[in-house]
């Protein structure tokens, strides 16, 4: 059961389950059990972007002119997103790679996590620009009670899975005494932890980011913090893909063709799945309350944002075959959709706001007079 980085067992990868089969040996994509993961990889690669390509310099002036309560909204969201992407940039790798058995899924996980690291780096890009003391923003994340409360629920399922897999890969199934403490682990229990973990990641990608997205776009509707909004659009585009990835994983698990035990587990865990969604929605509504504690922003207030949380929670639940838990059926902020369309988010080099291109442009705008003092 120990993990090996190159499994010598000659196996038919098409017959492996997604997780807890043989560790992957050859990373080959000429044959695929689930072609969808290869397609997600290709799509994610086509989305590649660099934070430095987005010019956020105008945001600095916008930010300075924001009233205090709006500064609070903006910066708090940024901190929360930083937490979420810190977790997402590493956890899929640490939690899923030691137990994955399909090469296309393994590579999807790596590609997915890598794109999260771009998100993390983009927050530094944004914060450096609006604040002369970026360290204060980041330092506060580890002290901010509201954010830490959320961190607990975001990481708990990952940690439980990682902990169980460590024990299992070292000692196998059964009762073990580790440092004088008795611990029990079974493959069935690990699969349960895996299912709940993917469920909680699905909720993270599907719901937790969206309060923050809505605020970013509400600023941009007023032509404020537009550099930030541009970055958020790129992030949202990636997140939509990650969400599709976890939805596929959950639906494959629940269908049971891949691993019949997973279907049974999915059924058994249904109530817990509902609880994970419900708790996340409540936490995000709490977050909305915290954001607007000193005042709302134009176009958005706590009630509208809470309705939006309910609305997306319902639709995310339906996507994985659960019943909606809220009565809200209409999107209270339909204008957000236009910000989430991916057509026109391309970071094209000809766009004026791309700073790396502007560096080149300066060279083109030199005229003859600039060489007046030059003798060759």
């Amino acid at each position, binding site marked *: 059961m120990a993990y090996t980085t190159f499994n010598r067992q000659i196996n038919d990868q098409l017959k492996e389950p997604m997780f807890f089969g043989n560790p992957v040996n050859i990373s080959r994509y000429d044959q695929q059990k689930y072609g969808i993961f290869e*397609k997600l990889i290709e799509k994610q690669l086509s989305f590649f972007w660099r934070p430095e390509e987005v010019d956020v310099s105008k945001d600095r002036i916008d930010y300075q002119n924001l009233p205090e309560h709006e500064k609070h909204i903006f910066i708090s969201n940024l901190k929360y997103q930083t937490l979420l992407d810190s977790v997402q940039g590493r956890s899929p790798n640490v939690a899923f790679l030691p137990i994955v058995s399909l090469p296309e899924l393994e590579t999807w996980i790596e590609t997915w996590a890598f794109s999260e690291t771009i998100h993390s780096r983009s927050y530094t890009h944004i914060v450096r620009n609006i604040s002369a003391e970026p360290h204060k923003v980041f330092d506060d994340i580890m002290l901010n009670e509201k954010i830490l409360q959320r961190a607990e629920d975001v990481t708990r399922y990952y940690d439980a899975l990682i902990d169980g897999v460590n024990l299992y890969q070292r000692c196998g199934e059964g009762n073990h005494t580790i440092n004088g403490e008795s611990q029990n682990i079974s493959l069935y229990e690990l699969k349960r932890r895996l299912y709940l973990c993917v469920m909680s990641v699905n909720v993270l990608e599907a719901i937790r980011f969206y309060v923050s997205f809505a605020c970013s776009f509400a600023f941009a509707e007023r032509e404020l913090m537009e550099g930030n909004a541009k970055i958020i659009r790129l992030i949202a*585009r990636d997140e939509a*893909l990650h969400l*599709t990835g976890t939805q596929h994983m959950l*639906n494959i698990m629940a269908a049971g063709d891949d691993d019949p035990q997973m279907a049974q587990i999915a059924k058994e865990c249904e109530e817990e799945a509902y609880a994970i969604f419900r708790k996340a929605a409540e936490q995000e509504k709490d977050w909305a309350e915290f954001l607007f504690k000193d005042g709302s922003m134009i176009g958005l207030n706590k009630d509208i944002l809470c309705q939006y949380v309910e609305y997306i929670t319902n*639709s995310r639940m339906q*996507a994985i075959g659960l019943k909606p838990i809220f009565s809200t059926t209409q999107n209270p902020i339909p204008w957000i*959709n236009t910000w*989430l*369309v991916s057509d026109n988010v391309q970071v094209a080099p000809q766009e004026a706001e791309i700073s790396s291109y502007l560096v080149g442009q300066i060279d083109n705008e030199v005229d003859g007079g600039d060489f007046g003092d030059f003798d060759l």
Partner: protein
Amino acid sequence: MPNVKISGNSAIAFDGTAPTLLTALEQHKLQVNFHCRQGYCGACRCKLLQGEVQYLNEPLAFVRKGEFLPCCSIPLTDIEIEIP
């Protein structure tokens, strides 16, 4: 010219002026949720109660039985749909 019947609503004709079913529905002022408009996010999921649609590009989003994505499809036959 396939007919698109929207459950609880009147029917509209898919007359070729819209590239996708989503655009056709929007032209008739019907509110359908969307994000990507490219078949990978699943936000536009609707129920397909009757008939057949054809995808212009194979969608990446998970589509369960009885559902379809209007953002990247056109009707092949008369269809009946339900917008959530």
